[in-house]
């Protein structure tokens, strides 16, 4: 006899039509799976009762791939075939991986630059395949627990994940045989777990301090719609840094020399971590270090001292909080709830400081390690159709502006950063030259004004534009970002109906720190960027003026101008040529108006002569 779960009133499913859904938190260090049963969202344990699945995969000869704790245990003895933290490699190119993680023990296959493959005894594997193994293991666990096949899953990703990284995550789920109902941003999932979406209206801050990264997000709920207003963070701040500071303190207290602290680094970090964990519950903890060379050091660490040690890190975490508030255009007292995510938020000083910063007690009653998976499970339950009423619609935002390259190497932003997705925006462009029949489109991501400072996402060409004078063609470019944050761009010439488009596929991913850096740069370069934009705009204008003048001179210069007049125009033109190569946009502007003035008589004569030409041979009556 099958085992049944309690449904919502009127929602009992017919036999064999149970729609099983799960939420998956695919983490860098650990992964979790959760589901909703009898109205309760809970994470699912494995056979031995463990909830966290270490995100580690060991590849062995034949088909015996091992995932989780056993793989993690083998990492030291078989580092080459055991892949840890594959999430950090998702959606990244080979060069980037090598530059960012120079110490990885893996040997990479040099055949494919775009999707790096790690050489293992089981053949080359990509980060996508490694993630797929983790997802397969979680899928198996969920299906064993629920007694049926999963209809769909919601997988969470960091809010900062770019297109390539999101696509890579989707691909991994596909390989694992899972249907992805939606990729959900981790902070959004945490807010859903606390049922904050059930309120009429409110603003929520999600403070996510994990093992190695920190993210803060401001979400706004209005009329049942959840929207991510801003995200900020620090990609190199987490529990490991707390451990490092405590380890440094031990080294200092014990008077260890450098050799010893390097040799016993792992052991020091472990004991520092245990001390940190103990101090979440107690006021004081004993530290007892016994080394394999027979020496021993004992000491104790009190919570006040611990707080003093980690204070700089807590302060560091509050900076992105301020930035997130500023991006959202809010003050700390506009925040209605604060949600804590990630194991490091168990540190009492973190809770206190965050509470003080936002002026309210943070929500902590759901296990901060599980809260993201729980929220994903609730969302999966709605999306798979187990809750028909009051469908919860979640909206996320794009982390960086999306735009197009225009003349002069400038970026025209089509969808500004923090726009909620899904979204479609169109803008009309035109041709720059007479008879132009093709247009090259360059899709960019970033906040800066110049192409060279933004990230190139894709290029494509719209061809077969009918030849027209410059400015007559009407080319509508549409940017569309779907609910998972994936971009497609189409360009269409309206008069002829020719169309071309591109989907942004995984190429070289952008690291979190690069996104962060790009955001920071855009703020610190605001003035430079404005000046640079003005310069490029004047340069483009100067180019246009010179081209038009040269064409006119070639046609009528000799007929309409005396040698003296011609020389005056030529010298003004030369001044503009010079100014164009400089970097003073005001000088270019002045030179343009000087040339304009010098050539105004010429322009007037051309006008007259063309009218004369037009009138020649006609009588006045012809025009009346």
């Amino acid at each position: 006899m099958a085992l049944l779960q309690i449904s919502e009133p009127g929602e009992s499913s017919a036999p064999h039509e149970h729609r099983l859904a799960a939420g998956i938190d695919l983490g860098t260090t650990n992964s979790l799976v959760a589901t909703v049963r009898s109205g309760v969202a809970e994470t699912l344990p494995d056979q031995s009762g463990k909830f966290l699945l270490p995100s580690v995969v060991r590849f062995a000869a034949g088909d015996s791939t091992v995932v989780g704790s056993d793989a993690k245990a083998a990492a030291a003895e078989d580092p080459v075939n055991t892949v840890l933290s594959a999430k950090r490699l998702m959606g990244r190119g080979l060069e980037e991986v090598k530059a960012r993680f120079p110490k990885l023990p893996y040997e990479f296959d040099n055949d494919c630059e775009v999707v790096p493959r790690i050489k293992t005894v089981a053949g080359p594997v990509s980060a996508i395949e490694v993630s797929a193994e983790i997802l397969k293991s979680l899928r198996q666990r969920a299906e064993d627990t629920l007694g049926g096949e999963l209809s769909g899953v919601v997988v969470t990703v960091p809010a900062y994940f770019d297109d390539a990284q999101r696509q890579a995550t989707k691909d991994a789920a596909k390989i694992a045989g899972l249907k992805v109902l939606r990729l959900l941003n981790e902070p959004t999932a945490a807010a859903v777990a606390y049922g904050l979406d059930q309120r009429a209206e409110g603003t929520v801050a999600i403070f996510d301090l994990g093992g190695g990264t920190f993210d803060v997000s401001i979400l706004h709920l209005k009329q049942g719609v959840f929207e991510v207003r801003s995200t900020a963070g620090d990609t190199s701040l987490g529990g490991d840094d707390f451990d490092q500071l405590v380890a440094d303190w031990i080294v200092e207290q014990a008077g260890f020399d450098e050799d010893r602290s390097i040799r016993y680094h792992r052991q020091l970090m472990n004991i520092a971590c245990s001390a940190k964990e103990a101090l979440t519950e107690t006021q004081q903890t004993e530290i007892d270090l016994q080394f394999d060379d027979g020496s021993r050091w004992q000491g104790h660490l009190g919570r006040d001292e611990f707080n003093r040690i980690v204070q700089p890190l807590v302060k560091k975490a509050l900076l992105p909080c301020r930035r997130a508030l500023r991006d959202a255009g809010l003050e700390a007292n506009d925040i209605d709830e604060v949600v804590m995510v990630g194991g490091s938020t168990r540190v009492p000083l973190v809770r206190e400081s965050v509470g003080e910063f936002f002026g309210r007690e943070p929500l902590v009653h759901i296990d901060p390690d599980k809260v993201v998976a729980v929220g994903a499970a609730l969302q999966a339950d709605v999306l798979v159709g187990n809750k028909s009423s009051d469908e919860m619609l979640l909206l996320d935002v794009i982390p960086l502006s999306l735009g197009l390259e225009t003349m002069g190497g400038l970026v025209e932003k089509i969808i500004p950063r923090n726009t909620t997705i899904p979204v479609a925006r169109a803008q009309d462009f035109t041709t720059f030259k007479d008879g132009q029949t093709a247009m090259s489109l360059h899709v960019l991501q970033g906040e800066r004004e110049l192409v060279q400072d933004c990230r190139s996402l894709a290029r494509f060409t719209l061809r077969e534009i009918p030849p027209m004078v410059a400015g007559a063609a009407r080319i509508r470019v549409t940017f569309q970002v779907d609910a998972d944050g994936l971009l497609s761009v189409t360009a269409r010439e309206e008069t002829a109906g020719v169309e071309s488009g591109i989907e942004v596929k995984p190429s070289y991913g952008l690291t979190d720190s690069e996104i962060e850096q790009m955001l920071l740069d855009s703020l610190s370069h605001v003035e430079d960027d404005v000046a640079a934009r003005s310069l490029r705009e004047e340069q483009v204008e100067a180019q246009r003026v010179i081209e038009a003048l040269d064409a006119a001179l070639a046609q009528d210069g000799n007929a309409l101008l005396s040698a003296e007049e011609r020389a005056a125009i030529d010298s003004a033109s030369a001044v503009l040529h010079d100014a164009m190569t400089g970097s003073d946009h005001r000088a270019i502007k002045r030179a343009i108006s000087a040339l304009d003035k010098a050539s105004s008589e010429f322009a007037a004569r051309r006008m007259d002569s063309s009218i004369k030409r037009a009138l020649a041979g006609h009588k006045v009556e012809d025009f009346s």
Partner: protein
Amino acid sequence: MAISLTDTAAERVQAFLANRGAGEGLRLGVRTTGCSGMAYVLEFADTVEPEDHVFESKGVRIIVDPKSMVYMDGTELDYGKEGLNEGFKFNNPNVKDTCGCGESFTV
């Protein structure tokens, strides 16, 4: 006759109801569907109809509509584990046969 819960089932139902924070009790029933003709209904109840049978078992209100009652009288609802899977089980004395998967039955 009546409908009853085992201790484990009562405990679980109370926990689920408390978590849900609303509801009159647990609605049990059958409907005609599935490969062997009938299937169980197991839902939270937000309303009680005047014609419904209402039982109290180990602190849980059980609500059954009169049509279902014919097929369910004497049923005991149990909660059990099978490997990793856990859930509710109907021990229904009226059942003659179930389909292979056990999700539907005939009386």
